[in-house]
């Protein structure tokens, strides 16, 4: 179980992932060796998985971002596995999520412009296996992007 100290270390580390151990210790009002031990334990138990790079795809020249909501043909038992396997091979796909609800899978797709998007959609997305319905949400802007947990 995590105690208050673990939670506050995680909270500070979420706010500043590159923070030094000394700085974390100061903020959590404890000593560096204590923070090191706690961090090692949080990593060992799998609470801390690692770090993720935040890229700005529009700065890389990918101006179009689309969220594709896919419903699969569930009469085919291997539909999910085959769809996911094929979707992973499309290099314009950034994220694959599976859901319980109205949609089965969501793909986050980037493209350089609308012409490129149409090409990706036609040549790579529509040929994916077992699609029964597909719906697109075009990304306009990001209002909030904060994966920190409210701990």
């Amino acid at each position: 179980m995590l105690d208050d100290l673990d939670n506050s270390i995680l909270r500070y580390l979420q706010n500043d992932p590159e923070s030094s151990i000394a700085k974390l210790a100061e903020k959590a009002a404890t000593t560096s060796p204590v923070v090191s031990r706690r961090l090692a334990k949080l990593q060992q138990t799998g609470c801390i998985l690692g770090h993720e790079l935040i890229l700005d795809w529009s700065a890389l020249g990918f101006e179009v971002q689309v969220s594709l909501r896919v419903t699969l043909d569930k009469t085919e038992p291997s539909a999910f596995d085959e769809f996911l396997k094929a979707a992973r091979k499309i290099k314009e796909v950034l994220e694959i999520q599976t859901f319980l609800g109205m949609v089965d899978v969501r793909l986050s797709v980037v493209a350089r412009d609308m012409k490129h998007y149409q090409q990706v959609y036609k040549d790579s997305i529509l040929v994916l296996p077992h699609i029964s319905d597909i719906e697109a949400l075009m990304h306009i802007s990001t209002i909030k992007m904060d994966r920190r947990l409210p701990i």
Partner: protein
Amino acid sequence: MLSILDKQLLKKLSLEPKLTTSALATSLSTSQPVIWRRIKRLESLGVIKGKRLLLNQELLGFGVKVFLGIKLATKGTISLDDFERVASAIPEVQSIEHVLGLYDYRLRVVARDIADFERILRRRIMTLPGVGQVEANVLLSEEVLTGPI
């Protein structure tokens, strides 16, 4: 424009963000100062926006992740700013995207369990200014790929 080296660097870093400049220099057969300068440049171009801590949400007690599709009820008469401002202040709302299509907004919400999610939905989401139809999909799995670098 990004060079081949920039792209290789981005690919390596997105797979392993904690790689040191010396490890990157060795694997890309160049020198540490070159790598350092390239990273600084990618940061100043806005390509690399930073690093994020990845936590195991389930182990930390957040077992439920839900994506909400929200349609505003009275477009035009209410201000999008109001909706965005109030929604942004909800700590359980991790992301808000303005989208075009079936919904107006797409929200990512974390909750401790289904009961906690119900509380957030009733007290926080359904009371947002201008909120109309809400669709909820519970996230079962997610994977992030390196994309077209």
